[in-house]
């Protein structure tokens, strides 16, 4: 629980920590992507502007690819660059490089592409309502009992929608490729989450033209949130090709406008829920969920997002009879991808709204209704995975108590009677399975390496990146705390694929949970093997043994057995749990929701570094609240947003007081923290708005325009 300071904070503050754009190489030139502005069509002709010396430019397109034109992904269906047909706005057609960045920009802006336009689906609802757009494999969790609903069970049937969400990492996507022809090595400096994904990406596009790709991250990775999981593979591929062709180091840093328009986002969803609730016992007896995601033009990693979505779709309720289906829908928009939460925020958005509607309809207190139905020991997930702890209900009880929820419900009810503005309070719960889904961690087979130097310095080699979450501080802390070694003698090295073993990607809340716990066991194992009490003493009296390298692999717990065909079994070994209560103040004249306070109780097991954990939770919670409140990326009639000027990110002025408490911290394991703060808060905003006004809005975000429409629609009724 020690809150040691971060190793990188001071250099980040005084500007000496290097982010991608802060690196430069001799003779380096600049690259940029030329992408489609047509949603679907065949390319007829590309006109380069007059007045430029074309020989100064390096241009690469699909025709120049020595390897394969398919980005490696869970489903490999997306080309690096379009050949003749483009399937979405933002699809890359060419990479172009020039020594002068300004001139390059100007040149690219003047390029004209003639298309023969074909029919395209760009509207989210048009995509998700039409079953003809389904592509890829349907996932089904079938936990039906075959029992017919009793005639007195109350039926509820609703459809919920969630929008895109932009990761908005503050450092745009960027890549530098340095071709080394003598060694036939493509060196790539990347701002990314997954150096080994980037390596595979470069080696796929370059094929036998190179011997190997070596990826090293920049010192600083300016935020990622899932957005730097798979897009960097594509970007690195094209940057490498430009370096290969020009023979010069090439740097591409996306302009914010390009970044926001062409990179992956959170999948918009349409989630239809039907439930049957027994009015006597107040238990939900039967549920049917139809979970749909707009994947964009290609599947890429959407099937994995879909898997997590259906596995979290029921929220935290034990429902004896459940049927959940998940499907991907195709549209002519850039492929959606990973974003903190990975399918779970959509699931909770729908189910946490749904239970609120049932409770309202049956005139039951929303907390008491949740309490009746919440997971307890002895229940199971729809996949039959047994629930082994009551920690979710502990989170709920604690947050109700500390927020004074029950009393405030009454107070606000009174206050609202005499005021035009309204006060509201809302609950939501959530959880997140740690690590890769199902058998994923077995397949990943992660390995870590440690080198102990002659001066007893411990160098830790992991492929997991520190993109702000403090991973490199916390991972080192888990190692040195286990063997009581001085902090300054234990350092995580900058990930580099030629030195670092593959400990897997920095995703799925797995860094501390899988790799951190592995490092802790590893430290104890080394201590045991060498038989030391104090590493410093041991090294100084056994100098000839050092430097020495140690390696260890992750072994999955044998209880994790998951049938990926039928979606039966243990999908995740450990879950983080959370509950939230949010208070709002609704300004009746401006239709604006002001967040006033948000209480959050989270179980992530052992907390390694209290301040880092609280900070990460606060950031995720604000992203979550903003997902429900103000962020949207596509608007019918307007199209997609263009940058930070029209994509509404929360600022300091939107910030409520955020209270975070971790419970069950005496647990021996540190569970996942990265994603859960994003998963659960958003529905509390919507439920608080319902509490304030009596109106349900089943679509995020709750912007004034949407509120105005529902209020006036309600008055007309």
């Amino acid at each position, binding site marked *: 629980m020690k809150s040691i300071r971060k190793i990188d904070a001071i250099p980040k503050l*005084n500007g*000496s920590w290097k*982010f991608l754009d802060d690196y430069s190489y001799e003779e380096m030139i600049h690259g940029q992507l030329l992408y489609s502005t047509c949603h679907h069509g065949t390319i007829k002709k590309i006109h380069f502007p007059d007045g430029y010396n074309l020989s100064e430019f390096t241009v690469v397109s699909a025709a120049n690819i020595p390897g394969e034109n398919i980005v490696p992904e869970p489903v490999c269906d997306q080309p690096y660059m379009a050949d003749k047909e483009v399937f979405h706005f933002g699809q890359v057609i060419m990479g172009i490089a020039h020594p002068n960045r300004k001139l390059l920009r100007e040149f690219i802006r003047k390029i004209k592409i003639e298309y023969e336009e074909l029919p395209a689906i760009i509207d989210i609802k048009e995509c998700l309502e039409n079953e003809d757009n389904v592509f890829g494999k349907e996932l089904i969790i079938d936990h039906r009992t075959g029992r017919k609903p009793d005639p007195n069970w109350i039926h509820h049937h609703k459809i919920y929608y969630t929008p895109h969400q932009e990761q908005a990492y*503050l450092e745009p996507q960027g890549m530098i490729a340095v071709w080394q022809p003598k060694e036939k090595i493509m060196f790539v400096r990347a701002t990314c989450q997954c150096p080994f994904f980037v390596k595979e990406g470069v080696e796929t596009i370059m094929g036998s033209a190179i011997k190997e790709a070596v990826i090293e991250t920049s010192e600083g990775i300016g935020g990622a949130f899932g957005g730097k999981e798979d897009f960097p593979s594509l970007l690195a591929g094209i940057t490498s090709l430009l370096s290969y062709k020009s023979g010069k180091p090439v740097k591409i840093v996306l302009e914010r406008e390009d970044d926001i328009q062409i990179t992956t986002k959170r999948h918009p969803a349409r989630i239809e829920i039907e439930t049957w609730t027994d009015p006597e016992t107040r238990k939900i007896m039967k549920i049917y969920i139809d979970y749909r995601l707009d994947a964009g033009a290609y599947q890429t990693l959407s099937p994995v997002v879909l898997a997590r979505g259906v596995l979290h779709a029921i929220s935290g309720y034990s429902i004896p009879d459940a049927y959940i289906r998940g499907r991907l829908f195709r549209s002519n928009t850039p492929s959606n991808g990973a974003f903190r939460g990975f399918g779970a925020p959509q699931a909770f958005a729908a189910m946490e709204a749904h239970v609120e509607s049932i409770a309202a309809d049956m005139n039951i207190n929303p907390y008491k209704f949740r309490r009746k139905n919440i997971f307890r020991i002895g229940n199971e997930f729809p996949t039959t995975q047994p629930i082994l702890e009551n920690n979710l209900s502990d989170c709920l009880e604690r947050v109700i108590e500390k927020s004074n929820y029950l009393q405030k419900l009454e107070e606000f009810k009174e206050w609202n009677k005499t005021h035009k503005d309204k006060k509201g309070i809302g609950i939501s719960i959530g959880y997140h399975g740690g690590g890769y889904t199902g058998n994923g961690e077995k397949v990943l087979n992660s390995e870590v390496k440690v080198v102990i130097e002659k001066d007893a310095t411990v160098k830790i080699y992991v492929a997991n990146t520190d993109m702000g979450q403090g991973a490199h501080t916390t991972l080192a802390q888990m190692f040195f705390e286990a063997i009581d070694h001085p902090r300054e003698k234990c350092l995580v090295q900058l990930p580099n694929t030629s030195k670092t073993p593959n400990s897997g990607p920095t995703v799925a809340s797995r860094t501390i949970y899988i790799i951190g716990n592995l490092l802790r066991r590893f430290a104890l194992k080394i201590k045991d093997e060498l038989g030391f009490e104090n590493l410093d003493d041991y090294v100084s009296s056994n100098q000839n043994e050092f430097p020495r390298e140690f390696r260890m692999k992750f072994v999955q717990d044998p209880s994790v057995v998951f049938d990926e065909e039928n979606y039966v079994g243990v999908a995740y070994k450990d879950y983080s749990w959370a509950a939230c209560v949010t208070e709002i103040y609704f300004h009746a004249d401006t239709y604006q929701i002001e967040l006033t306070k948000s209480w959050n109780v989270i179980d992530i097991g052992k907390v390694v570094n209290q301040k880092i954990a609280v900070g990460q939770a606060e950031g995720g919670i604000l992203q979550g609240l903003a997902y429900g409140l103000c962020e949207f990326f596509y608007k019918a009639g307007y199209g997609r947003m263009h940058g930070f000027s029209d994509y509404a990110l929360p600022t300091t002025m939107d910030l409520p007081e955020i209270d975070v408490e971790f419970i069950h911290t005496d647990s021996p394991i540190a569970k996942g923290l990265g994603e859960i703060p994003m998963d659960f808060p958003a529905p509390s905003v919507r439920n608080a708005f319902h509490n304030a006004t009596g109106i349900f809005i089943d679509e995020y975000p709750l912007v004034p325009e949407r509120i105005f429409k529902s209020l006036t629609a309600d008055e007309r009724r």
Partner: protein
Amino acid sequence: MKIKFILNENEVSIDVDPMKRLLDILREDFGLTGTKEGCGEGECGACTVLLDGKPVTSCLVNAVHIDGKEVMTSEGIAQEPLGKLLIDCFDETNAVQCGFCFPGFLVTSYHYLITDGEKNPDKIKKALSGNICRCTGYQKIFESVMLACERKPLISTDQVN
């Protein structure tokens, strides 16, 4: 165009395209890469510097605008006693996450500290509202600036001047 200006307390001059952005002048011509480009459209504040003592987004300021003026970047502020105080407070609270926004926050908070410095959450929120941070949820940033306001009197005034 030849321009002269004061950069982090040193007089400098440079021959430059009058429309070149101050952000690029700092990063490319002076190697001061602490000033970051987050959006290039004046929205995120990652590129904030002080121009004649006032915070500006350097992605929207051109070379012509700085001739004869005084520019202070995060690197310069990091050398000042109150800058050091702020850095220590940000560090102590573990406020810094990815850090890309922080040089901008350092500049804006420094400006607040020298022009006002009252330990008042509403004033601080307002002062920092032009800077976007996507990682922290801002709470730890406030805590840090509040802490700096509290500790400011401990920094001797002649050090400040």
